[in-house]
């Protein structure tokens, strides 16, 4: 009973964040696309945690740990990429 | 587990097809690199299907799993090399697409 329900919630969370793929496609700004990816990242972490509980695979929590550790990486590369040559910091000129 | 593994194996087959299409159709080198990675991960998923059918604890047969892990890391190194080549191409010629014919120098010169 519990594993089934947890797997169901994993599907629900994944479905709701996967809808964010529409924002990746539509934009309009690059920031919008990046935010959608960020939401998918967090939702993915939640999905993995729920799945780890549903399948009774505690080792899978480590996957969520790695995803959470690296959750900011793509966004950091993205904001750097907005500066010429991709080496700056959005705060510099602020 | 068997039928689920087969489902993801079929998804892997579709990914190889999608990647091949992108590799042929997209002109920008970065897009080609993306498409090539799709092909690779599709193959890995097919391997996953083979591993998952094997039963056993934790994802089934450990031998295909180990090969997929080495494959993922090698795919990253190939991607990094391809990106470095693309950047060099861009720096030298200002182009982001491959020349239309292999002996481009003969044509352009």
């Amino acid at each position, binding site marked *: 009973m519990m594993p*089934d329900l947890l*797997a*169901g919630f994993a*599907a629900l969370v*994944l479905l709701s964040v*996967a809808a964010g*793929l529409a924002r990746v496609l539509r934009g309009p700004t690059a920031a919008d696309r990046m935010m959608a990816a960020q939401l*998918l990242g967090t939702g*993915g972490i939640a*999905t*993995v945690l729920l*799945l780890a509980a549903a399948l009774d695979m505690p080792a*899978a929590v*480590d996957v969520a740990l*790695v995803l959470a*550790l*690296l959750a900011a990486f*793509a966004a950091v590369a*993205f904001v750097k990429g907005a500066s010429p040559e991709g*080496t700056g*910091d959005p705060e*510099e000129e602020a | 587990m068997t039928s*689920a593994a*087969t*489902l*993801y194996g079929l998804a892997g*087959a*579709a990914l190889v*097809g*999608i990647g*091949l299409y*992108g590799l*042929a159709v997209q002109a920008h080198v970065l897009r080609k*690199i*993306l*498409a090539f990675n799709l092909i690779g991960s599709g193959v890995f*998923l097919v391997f*996953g299907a083979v591993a998952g059918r*094997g039963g*056993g604890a934790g*994802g*089934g*047969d450990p031998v295909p*799993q*180990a090969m*997929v*892990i*080495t494959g*993922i*890391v*090698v795919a*990253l*190194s190939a*991607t*990094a*090399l391809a*990106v470095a080549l693309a950047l060099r191409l*861009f720096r030298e010629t200002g*182009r*982001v697409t491959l020349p239309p014919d292999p002996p481009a120098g003969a044509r352009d010169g």
Partner: protein
Amino acid sequence: MTALYLLDLVLVPAILLAACTAVGTRDRFAAVVSFIVYGLLLAIAWVRLGAVDVALAEAAIGAGLTGVLLLGALARMGRRADEAAAAGPPGRTLRLGAAALGAAVAAGIAAAVLALPEPAPQLSGAVAEALPALGLGNPVTGVLLAFRGYDTLLEAVVLLLALLGIWSLAPDPAWGGLPGLRHRARPEGVLAWLGRLLPPVGIVVGLYVFWVGADRPGGAFQAGTILAAVWILAVMSALVEPPAVRSLALRLALVAGPALFLAVGFAGLGLAGAFLGYPAAAGWAKPLILLVEAGLTLSIAATLALLVAGTPERAAG
């Protein structure tokens, strides 16, 4: 468990959709972001299939390194209109032909997947039988470091070859110099703050993943990737500079793992009667494997980090 099929019903279409977007969308940035999302979804798929070792590798590479690599390249090649856009969309014949080719290959592979023999031939039994002799609990680590050790050894060498390829693209003035361009960040800004906070945590997580790898999912590849990723973050936060690629210490770190692996492999000739064999005496295999893994973790971390850092572009100061 039936609810898992509900998850499959969401996950598989999402993976295919993200793949189609990465290939099909006009906007290049959207394509790269879709690809990053695709990597994340694949990591979830590997968890779903129970292959946590693979999921860890995919999570660390897909979420960490690939995104940085591709977004960095995109930034440098520019998002402005270029000849790829000027050439217009590909011709109809090309698109139809490519679609036909892709569909045919996909159908062929699908047929092969469906035609896999029942019951599946497999090696899990053989691995499970031989694993106690190594003193390990994780069969995947056993396969990587012992049963198919030559694969792993050659893979470590392939990584080094790719790195040599990247280094050899350096222009003459920067030969042997510092990879990539110099990053800047406001010293007291958010970016520098993250760069100071996350790497220590990442080192702890990386060492943890390495250490549990003997008995649970984890190991040298996953740990090396995590360590490489947090080092790249420190570089992007302008806290550390990558070393000049001619630096001796760097080169020692790069070859330490493969060299250690080779040394243990040759020792196996004498001790176990086979190249890459481990002595049969109880208690010997595990320490040797951990030693090789420690060396590999260091070398893989250094190699992956420099693969992402790229071609030397500045002369060593």
